[in-house]
């Protein structure tokens, strides 16, 4: 069971807050229940799957697209504050009912998304209690998620710092390795060069007496 509580300001009573509770099973498109409360009274009604299909047909809108619009209007509260209009019209004579309607604003044009008749609830106190309890449960759940994410955040930051430290050490180690290997290579190479110089000197000395001998002969 999914539930969403939000506040609305009916077009005909802009100064009055109503609390809108939408309840549905998994998919909004299979039907949903609307509960409206002004914190004193409460009204409830349902929109069935068939009614959703009919509404979409009447609007010549693809059903999926229509359900998405309903989700944005009633559940997500998506878009700017005045993207969706709601209205609550109480029948002056019949206090047991009220008409709840919702429409979408597009620039200068509004188009009706849907409407339904809500029946007054005999025990509004229970509805209001349930509404507040749902809000408190949401707060507790979000708080727990926030704490979890914060811990996760700290762990990730710590991990990042670790890897960053390892990277710096690796870069340093690479530079040290290069310098170290060159140092060692220079020492060994210079030994060879010293040997070559020595051999060249000996060869020169060895070749000179032979020339002298040839000269004497």
């Amino acid at each position, binding site marked *: 069971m999914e539930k969403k509580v939000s506040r609305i300001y009916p077009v005909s009573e802009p100064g009055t807050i109503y609390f809108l509770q939408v309840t549905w099973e998994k998919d909004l498109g299979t039907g949903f229940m609307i509960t409206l409360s002004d914190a004193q009274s409460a009204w409830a009604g349902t929109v069935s799957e068939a009614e959703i299909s009919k509404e979409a047909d009447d609007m010549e809108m693809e059903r999926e697209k229509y359900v998405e619009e309903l989700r944005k209007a009633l559940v997500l509260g998506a878009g700017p504050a005045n993207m969706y209009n709601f209205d609550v019209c109480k029948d002056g004579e019949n206090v047991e009912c009220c008409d709840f309607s919702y429409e979408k604003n597009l620039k200068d044009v509004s188009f009706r998304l849907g409407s339904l008749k809500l029946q007054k609830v005999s025990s509004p106190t229970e509805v209001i209690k349930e509404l507040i309890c749902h809000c408190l449960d949401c707060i507790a759940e979000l708080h727990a998620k926030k704490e979890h994410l914060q811990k996760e955040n700290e762990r990730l930051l710590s991990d990042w710092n670790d890897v960053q430290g390892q990277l710096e050490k690796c870069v340093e180690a690479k530079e040290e390795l290069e310098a170290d290997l060159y140092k060692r290579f220079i020492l*060994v190479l210079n*030994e060879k060069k010293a*040997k070559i110089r020595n051999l060249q000197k000996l060869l020169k000395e060895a070749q000179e007496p032979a020339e002298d001998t040839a000269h004497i002969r």
Partner: protein
Amino acid sequence: SPDTKQHFACEYDCYGDSYTADTDLTQIKEVFSRINEND
């Protein structure tokens, strides 16, 4: 012995690398490992 010492001095440098025998990866690593910080 002095003779052996003399022989090795002719054949190898002070780090134990042969003057004449071609080196390879294993040998050069071995030679490098003998070089200490003081060198």
